[in-house]
């Protein structure tokens, strides 16, 4: 997966490192008997230190695939077939599997989707945190380990007794907090949270997201939040990337996206959200997301786009800067 123009050592581009995470021209495919399907197509974005970046899109847009690809956790038939991910100045593709494994948690960590299944049901929470620490050569004495576990649980707002509990004894919100505790145990620079609250009800969701925001600030880490809830994005992230059919179609500061979304898909994604202010504002997006194996020519969104013109049917729009800090892939933007 070596992209052209990168040297083999994995160290590159001095002076370009204001960002902690850079994704450059990432491509991911899934092999399939009917031909391989590109789930992430030429996606680039970067994450500044302390920044909260959102990746939004419908199911099948490639957002979760991208999260797994960044962590090199994709399993066949999925594979990365181009591009590079940089964590500080380390090219992740240059690392051995073992080096990558050591970098996970220590440099970049995942808070998984639906933590119902992410924890080991037959181990106490203490043992699961100890596993993560032990796997990264943190040889701690028994009492140091106990103190570290207590400290981590405290950071995510869980009482110390939780250490001795099994996952089934915890509520959904507590399990998600336990997952956050594991994710932050080695103080990573980047936390990738893949729909961390999709299985929780709104009151608990708010508490878990507040916890995530606080630990992120304490660590000085950056966060990538993957999800489809534009309300959650509006309240949590600093910048948002919107994905459609495997491509980024818009990237902008969140306030810009809420105030003046440039891409018609982003506009419709926001309009599809039910409002508590006014009735009758909720509109669906007509049609269905396209099959990745059979994308329409031109702009992939044009069959569902109410604003499409002739050019949209033939020429694929590229992501370009349309105003300061705002990029959109639309001929009309």
């Amino acid at each position, binding site marked *: 997966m070596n992209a052209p123009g990168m040297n083999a050592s994995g160290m590159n581009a001095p002076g370009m490192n204001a960002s902690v995470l850079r994704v450059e021209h990432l491509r991911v495919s899934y092999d399939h008997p009917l031909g391989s399907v590109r789930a992430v197509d030429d996606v680039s974005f970067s994450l500044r230190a302390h920044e909260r970046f959102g990746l939004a899109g*419908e*199911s099948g847009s490639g957002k979760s695939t991208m999260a797994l690809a960044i962590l090199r956790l994709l399993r066949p038939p999925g594979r990365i077939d181009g591009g590079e991910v940089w964590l500080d100045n380390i090219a992740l593709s240059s690392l051995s599997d073992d080096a990558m494994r050591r970098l996970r948690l220590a440099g970049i960590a995942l808070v998984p989707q639906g933590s119902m299944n992410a924890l080991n049901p037959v181990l106490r929470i203490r043992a699961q945190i100890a596993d993560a620490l032990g796997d990264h050569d943190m040889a701690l004495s028994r009492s140091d380990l106990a103190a570290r576990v207590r400290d981590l649980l405290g950071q995510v707002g869980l009482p110390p007794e939780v250490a001795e509990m099994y996952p089934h004894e915890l509520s*959904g919100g507590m399990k998600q907090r336990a997952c956050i505790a594991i994710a932050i145990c080695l103080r990573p620079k980047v936390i990738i949270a893949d729909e961390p609250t999709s299985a929780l*009800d*709104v*009151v608990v*969701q*708010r*508490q878990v*997201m*507040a916890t995530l*925001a606080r630990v992120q600030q304490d660590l000085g880490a950056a966060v990538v939040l993957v999800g*489809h*809830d*534009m*309300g*959650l994005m*509006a*309240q*949590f992230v600093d910048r948002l990337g919107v994905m459609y059919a495997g491509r980024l179609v818009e990237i902008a500061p969140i*306030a810009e996206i*809420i*105030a003046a979304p440039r891409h018609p898909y982003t506009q*419709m*994604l*926001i309009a*599809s*959200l*039910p*409002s*508590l202010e006014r*009735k*009758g*504002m*909720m*509109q*669906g*997006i*007509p049609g*269905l*997301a396209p099959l990745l194996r059979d994308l329409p020519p031109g702009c992939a969104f044009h069959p569902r786009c109410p604003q499409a013109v002739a050019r949209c049917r033939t020429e694929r729009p590229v992501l370009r800067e349309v105003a300061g800090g705002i990029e959109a892939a639309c001929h009309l933007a």
Partner: protein
Amino acid sequence: MTLLLEARHVTKYFGGGLLDRDSTVALEDFSFAIDSGRPSITAIVGESGSGKTTLARVLLGLVAPTSGTVLYQGRDLHALSGAERRNFRRDIQAIFQDPYGVYNPFYRVDHVLTTPVARFRLARSRTEARGLIEDALRAVGLRPEEILGRFPHQLSGGQRQRVMVARALLLRPHVIVADEPVSMVDASLRATILGSLRQLNQERGISIIYITHDLATAYQVADNIIVLYRANVAEAGDVERVVKAPQHPYTQLLITSIPQVSTERTWLNEQPVAQRIAPGQTGCRFVERCPVAMPVCQTMPPPLSRTEPRRVVACHHHPDPAGAQQNVLADMFVES
């Protein structure tokens, strides 16, 4: 006047009976009524474990209440004759959460549509049956040629859920009980499916009971709302009033917890702080989490008070101006 569907003081315990200490209260003293003369959409909103799915199953006659009765056209569901039961099965339709689990993967989608037509003898010929099915599919915004003859895995979740709405529609019911019909479909499709439900209500006079954890979609589709908290009604009434001016602290908490698409970012701050009051066995269910709990809340369950003509609240902060009344909830929805 005979009510179409009515729940009278329905209580449901799981595991053991009324006196069993280990039993779980799923629904407590719930009363509700639907009048066929005025088709409406009622949303039943609550978090996991609030009893909303139990309520759906009780109303559908799928579980028997521990105490209290459910009546269909004035007759107890458990005393219906064969023919009456058949009418009930046809008149009250259900749509469930999972648009994957309800299909048999080995049968074409047509199967879920042809079965009720045959079972209830809705058509005299194949052609007539085909016509009915195609009309039902069109009514929910599907193109029959894209749906019929396919297998379930060839349709999207949104399409499958709309086929379930079409199936319910085939039987020309008076009531559809929809239990979380959109929680498993994409946000962009939710609006379309809920729009179909709204349309069935307005154009065909079908009453809809929309059960959900999502207060925002409830506000968008419903006329009335019932907020459940741990097996009890916290607040109920006209959806516009309840959402715009919530009176129960739990409803207030629910509303402020929804992240809004807005450039105002206040959602992560201002977490309401609950007063640390030990949970009372006898008091208000919400007392442990309530920011405005009083000593009386620990010892006495708050009665439902009618604070407005079309609103009831179970909170000691809102005593009933007219004094305690029987059956305020059921009355509220059927009185004109």
